[in-house]
């Protein structure tokens, strides 16, 4: 939506982390346009369902293509778009509930395929649009509208999960830093394979973690965010696992495996083995 649409009445709450993520995605797409000369309509943004998915309607300026589909299925929709037109830049935007809970089954296969798309995940640790239920990244014991006696399950560590499943590019960012975040997203877009940029994007209404994330030293609160040191070798899987043992929320590129080919490249590799025949020829094989 490039200008105000009187019919579309969805609003993020004031201070929502998703504003920053939107800005970062806009920066990243404009950066791509400036560097490659490829027009905005060369981008397709596949959105999940939830507050975060509305990002696809709230982008400002030149509009990319978008699909705002069904809950949890942004990844396989993106699979279809990318494999139909491998030259497009295909992105997924989704939240922690959409991506890790209902959509969790789709992460492993895309990782195995090394599907060449970039997923930007807005993690606020809560289901916002349905008003405050617990999500996979809600802390164990947390009281939410759906966990009146405290959340029973442990909190999923998404970065550990991605690393274990074999996602070939993994970055972690913060919505409060749109410029650096846009750099991570740019890297994710350029990565030839499956990239996930997992973003802390706090919900100011149901799970406001801004202070925990940024810290408040005057009140003795250490920031949960910490920069991944420059000497970290992102191609080193063991080092990435090691980093995650430090707790808190690392910011930067955690893992980057450039040695694998992407699914669309693998398909091109089959062309020499496959011998395309015309329908006439195929039908001829059944003739007698």
């Amino acid at each position, binding site marked *: 939506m490039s200008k105000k649409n009187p019919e579309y009445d969805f609003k993020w709450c004031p201070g929502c982390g998703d504003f920053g993520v939107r800005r970062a995605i806009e920066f990243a797409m404009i950066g791509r346009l400036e560097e490659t000369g490829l027009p905005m309509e060369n981008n397709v943004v596949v959105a999940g369902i939830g507050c975060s998915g509305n990002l696809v309607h709230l982008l400002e300026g030149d509009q990319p293509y978008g*699909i705002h*589909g069904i809950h949890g299925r942004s990844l396989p929709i993106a699979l279809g778009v990318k494999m139909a037109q491998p030259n497009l830049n295909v992105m997924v935007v989704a939240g922690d509930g959409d991506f890790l809970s209902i959509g969790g089954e789709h992460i492993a296969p895309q990782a195995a395929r090394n599907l060449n798309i970039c997923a930007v995940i807005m993690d606020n640790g809560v289901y916002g649009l349905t008003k405050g239920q617990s999500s996979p990244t809600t802390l164990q014991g947390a009281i939410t509208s759906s966990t009146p006696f405290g959340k029973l399950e442990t909190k999923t560590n998404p970065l550990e999960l991605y690393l274990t499943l074999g996602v070939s590019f993994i970055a972690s960012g913060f919505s409060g830093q749109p410029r650096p975040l846009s750099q991570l997203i740019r890297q994710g877009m350029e990565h030839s394979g499956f990239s996930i940029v997992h973003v802390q994007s706090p919900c100011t209404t149901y799970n406001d973690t801004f202070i925990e994330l940024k810290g408040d030293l005057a009140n003795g609160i250490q920031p949960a965010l910490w920069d991944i040191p420059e000497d970290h070798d992102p191609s080193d899987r063991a080092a990435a696992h090691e980093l995650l043992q430090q707790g808190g929320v690392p910011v930067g590129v955690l893992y980057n495996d450039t040695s694998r080919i992407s699914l669309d490249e693998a398909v091109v590799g089959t062309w020499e083995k496959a011998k395309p025949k015309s329908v006439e020829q195929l039908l001829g094989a059944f003739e007698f």
Partner: protein
Amino acid sequence: MQMRDFVVRFAGEGGQGVVTSAEGLAQSSTQVGYHALTFATFPSQILGGPTWTQARISVDPVLAPGDDVNVLVAFNRDAYDEHEGDVREDGVVIFDSNEFELEGDSRSFGLPFEELAKSTGNNRAANMVIMGALAHLINMPQENLISFVEQRFTRGRNEDAQIIKSNIEALNLGRSHIAESGFSLGELAPPEMPEYKQVMIKGNEAVSLGAMAAGLDFYAGYPISPATPILLYMERNLVGENRLAYQVSSEIEAITAIIGAGYAGKRAMTATSGPGVSLMSEGLGLAWIAEIPLVVVNVQRGGPATGLPTKTEQSDLFSCMYPAHGDVKMPIIAAGTVEECFYGAAKAVEWAERYQGPVILMSEMALAERVQNIRKPDLSAVKDAKRVVYSGNNGYLRYAGSELSPMPIPGNPGAYVANGSEHDDMGDTTHLGERHVQMTERRFGKIKLLEENEYESDQTENSIAVLPWGGSKGPAQEAYAQLKESGLPVSWYYTMFLNPLPPKMLEELKKKDLVIVPELNYQGQFSSILRSMGVKAESITQYTGLPFKARTLVEKITEMTNASLKEMVRV
């Protein structure tokens, strides 16, 4: 009198060559000019389990597996016990005397299949022993079989000549051994070789080729019986630049991947069976509301949940026509013959592009696995599937108005959001009542674009009609031909277009006093839908996992017709 057709049933254990024997017999018969089709039913396991396949060989084209068995070939004792009762009184049982012995069945004859095969030096020639025996029973000229063997085994290998020799020897052994029995079924009338070109093909292969003929270029699928052969065929043949067939992780991935591909400009399809359709339900709703062309093939099996994975049924009409929540009604083409599997699939791809939305092609186990000789499909009769593509500038209102509008393709100007929420002209989410009214009417209105005029009809002056759908067309057609000859006043209607129905046919059906719908389900699904449209329809139902017998339909149609005529007289 010469026979016009006969049915051979091969029964045994999976892996004993039951299917290959039946298909070999069908193939050899068509090569000499007969018509043939097979009917198969499998156990749902990799190896073993009771299995049977029958082949119907006929002078005239037929579309049903055949009511009675002329010859039972029993590979083991269980198979004999299970199927012996289906053999006609004047029929014959050939059994494998290496496996078991039989006493007291005067119409049975034991042949040591394996032993005879081995004596030719070719352990794999047991099928040929059986074929030779069958040829004797129906007095088929030996040269027909020899030419089949020569064609089949000439593959450019050094050992070709030896293999051909041993197979012919096996044929002769089968023939000479059964001659000792003194059994004969009479003589099958000589074949009348059709003048047109023919192909010998299964329903699933015909679906694959039909879709490709219409220009299919993207396929995503997940293995499921009995639709898997379509996935396998596509993976081998929908290949090369700008085409892709790909196995994904679930039916949910299959439907959503083809949504993505259809959105990105591809003619996209998946094939599945009932359980897969259930999983695709939400995705079908998305394709409907966001107006994305795609085809879902449902090769029906039996029952809910896992049900009867390897049996045939027509019980998914409700779930295909109304698969999703909210107001949706899917366009449906239901193939009734192997030929219609080809043309129906081509039409489904063309429909999807024409109205920009999801289309369901229904097939069924009995068609999918049926191998049949059909007239070679005419590729020039297949329309290339084309959608109206937007070619203007950015700032396009993709969903404006109440009619079909050109569809932008990503990569080109005209960016919009394909939205699964109710949306406005540009694809943004809206909750306005009047928008929902406009968009709902827009979506249902587009179905009108798919109305076709083709349908079959005969003796339309009669006020009682027979209207089968899908694979029940075969037995119903056979039953109708008999009823027509006997003078029962019924008319015949048939179409593969179930939604929308050909408007003129629907008009005619509405005027009938009774429309009899033979269908393989408990609820009478099609007649129920027809009644909601104002047609006085009643079903003949069957839910045994097997197709109708023509005889059953003759009885039931006669019964229902007479009851209805009596009723009319009383009124």
